[in-house]
């Protein structure tokens, strides 16, 4: 097992040999025939093709649907590590919900001068239609996918708070399913916590957020933009696993004061809509009138308390990358505690001093668009050519407020199976958080994304990243 020098490898630390959480796995692995494992890796691919998990890649016309590479070596997290992570995530998610309520009501955090007014006032993610709106149960972010990176034994950072419509949970579930099929014997040797009840938990958590208008058992549905969306598989998969309807905008209408879906028995009112459509496309009457995907009047029904929309419209103001840099203050303001999980130091290019620093140190930094996602439109300084850096500097000077910069983190590595045996690759982690009025649940595990190219720090699936099963060990 070879290690990239200077990076923390989750299997072997800084080269000390197998760390505790991997001990059971390693003793199993050493007795495996490498040829058999390679065969298993191929089988896994077939398994994925059969279940139909593919991913549409934007900007690549040929091969617009392809498989995300799956690696058969699990990423393993000890119970102690997990418990600290979950405390940190829970604290952060509570703070985000409190922040969202505040920012759409009294704006105490602005009055207190803890974050600059312009940051909200000039922010496109701030949704005026949400001013004064209190969502059912007080929950704004029903589903959060907090991106975590690790740089050392006890060094965890939050990279992004995905508080709008985080995707990827179907990979978490399919990855586990695949591993259970490939290596059933492993799961009897290693005490791995279950993730398979996520759809059940999701359904319960959503149902617990039903609006006052709901009488009887809450009706939940998943709203998808349709088959051409890159995450359509996940939308249909989750609806299927939860045992609820998958609907498109066209299927929904306002009937008897409720948003209702067309069924074989006529229109049925929906209590909780898990929408996988961006705010802008959600309601052509109230937002983008050109949207053919949304449900006209759904925002009116929402504001009248007749339906729960998960996540709430306007949550983007909490996971905006410029707001991110204030998260430690936000956590402290609303919880009265220091943030348990660290933020990555962030330069806001809107500030002149920061911009100057960033321009001078571009080759060392990662620069991201404030509203970007999916690894598009970003610069990874150390991996970029001189020409790319120069071109990016131009974009940065033209619209500095559009960018933030962060140091290039030494992301931890986990081995992947290659033709030449195990080799370290950089990873991140997206645990999935479910928020309901009475509790916050974090599925033990999450989606581990892995940069399949040696040395690469970009794990996004749209940029050629792969995934791994993520194991959280029992106490």
């Amino acid at each position: 097992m070879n290690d990239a020098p200077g990076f923390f490898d989750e299997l072997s630390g800084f080269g000390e040999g197998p760390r505790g959480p991997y001990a059971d796995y390693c003793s199993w692995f050493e007795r495996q025939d490498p040829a058999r494992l390679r065969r298993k890796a191929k089988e896994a691919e077939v398994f994925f093709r059969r279940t139909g998990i593919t991913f549409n890649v934007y900007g690549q016309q040929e091969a617009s649907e392809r498989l995300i590479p799956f690696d058969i070596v699990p990423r393993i997290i000890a119970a102690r590590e997990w418990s600290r992570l979950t405390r940190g995530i829970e604290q952060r998610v509570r703070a985000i919900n409190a922040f969202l309520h505040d920012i759409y009501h009294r704006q105490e955090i602005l009055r207190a001068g803890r974050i600059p007014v312009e940051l909200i006032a000039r922010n496109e993610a701030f949704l005026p239609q949400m001013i004064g709106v209190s969502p059912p149960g007080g929950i704004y972010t029903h589903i959060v996918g907090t991106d975590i990176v690790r740089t050392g034994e006890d060094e965890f950072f939050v990279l992004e708070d995905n508080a709008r419509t985080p995707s990827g949970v179907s990979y978490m579930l399919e990855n586990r399913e695949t591993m259970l099929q490939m290596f059933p014997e492993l799961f009897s040797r290693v005490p791995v916590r279950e993730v398979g009840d996520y759809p059940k938990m999701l359904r319960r958590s959503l149902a617990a957020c039903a609006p006052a208008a709901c009488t009887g058992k809450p009706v939940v549905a998943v709203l998808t933009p349709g088959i051409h969306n890159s995450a359509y598989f996940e939308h249909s998969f989750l609806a299927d696993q939860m045992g609820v309807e998958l609907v498109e905008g066209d299927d929904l209408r306002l009937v008897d004061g409720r948003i209702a879906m067309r069924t074989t028995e006529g229109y049925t009112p929906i209590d909780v809509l898990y929408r996988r459509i961006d705010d802008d496309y959600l309601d052509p009457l109230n937002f983008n009138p050109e949207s053919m995907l949304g449900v006209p009047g759904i925002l009116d029904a929402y504001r009248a308390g007749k339906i729960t929309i998960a996540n709430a419209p306007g949550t983007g103001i909490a996971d905006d990358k410029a707001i991110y840099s204030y998260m430690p203050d936000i956590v402290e303001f609303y919880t009265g505690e220091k943030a348990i999980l660290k933020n990555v130091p962030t330069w806001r290019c809107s500030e002149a001093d920061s911009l100057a620093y960033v321009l001078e140190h571009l080759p060392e930094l990662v620069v991201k668009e404030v509203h970007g996602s999916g690894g598009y439109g970003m610069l990874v300084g150390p991996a970029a050519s001189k020409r790319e850096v120069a071109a990016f500097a131009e974009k940065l000077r033209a619209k500095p407020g559009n960018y933030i910069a962060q140091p290039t983190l030494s992301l931890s590595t986990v081995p992947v199976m290659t033709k030449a045996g195990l080799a370290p690759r950089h990873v991140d982690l997206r645990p999935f958080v479910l928020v309901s009025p009475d509790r916050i649940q974090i599925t033990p595990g999450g989606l581990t994304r892995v940069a399949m190219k040696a040395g690469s720090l970009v794990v996004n699936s749209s940029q050629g990243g792969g995934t791994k099963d993520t194991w959280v060990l029992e106490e």
Partner: protein
Amino acid sequence: MLVKIRHSTEYHYDQPVPYGLQQLRMVPKGSAGQKVLSWSTSVEGGRKEVAFTDQHNNHVELLTIDRGARSVTILCEGEVDTADTVGIIGQHGGYAPLWYFERQTPHTRAGAQVRQLVKALGKDFDNDTARLHALSALILRTVGYEIGRTDFSTSAEQALETGHGVCQDHAHIFISAARLLGYPARYVSGYLVMDDRVDQEAGHAWAEAHVPGLGWVGFDISNGVSPDERYVRVATGLDYREAAPVSGITFGGHTESMVVHLQVQQ
């Protein structure tokens, strides 16, 4: 003044409408110097689905058009007791922060024309209200009142280019310029009692600017005055779009026509 209003809005479609929604902002506000004594909204050819209060404290009702309907009639009737507050609405309230009213919209975005107007206004004024009254007068001089030269989609810039417009255009130009000058400003849609007639062709529109010390102050640019007891405030917003009496969305290949009957009297 006791103001009686009867306002009917009819939409006619040349083919049956399979599905459609109308969002109404037609209930007068219970605000400074104004008390709604009675009010009713009735609908023919459609039904009220939900009601809520929006970020501008407007009372909003959403109705669906009856399936296959060829016309919808919305009838608003009621009485409002008004008082003269010399145009002053007073201190800002509600959750919508004042900075929100500094945001330009596609209707109010200030371009070369609005900038030119603000430049022509000059700088030498005793106080904020004097400056804003001068702005109001300058707009009326620059853009004469004339029906038919602009429509509901005309922006402040376009109206200035056209050189003619109606109360909606005057309000948009005023709001655009006021925001450029640093005043939070908003659009008001409502009713005006006219001295010489009861029957009117449409509701009225004016603007409000937030002046330090006084709070919100109204300016009826088209009539060159601040609103008094003849004015009934109905809905407010950043621009016409946010305060429009009716915003609708209909499906199907029909064409639509609208007939308004409005009576405003003492």
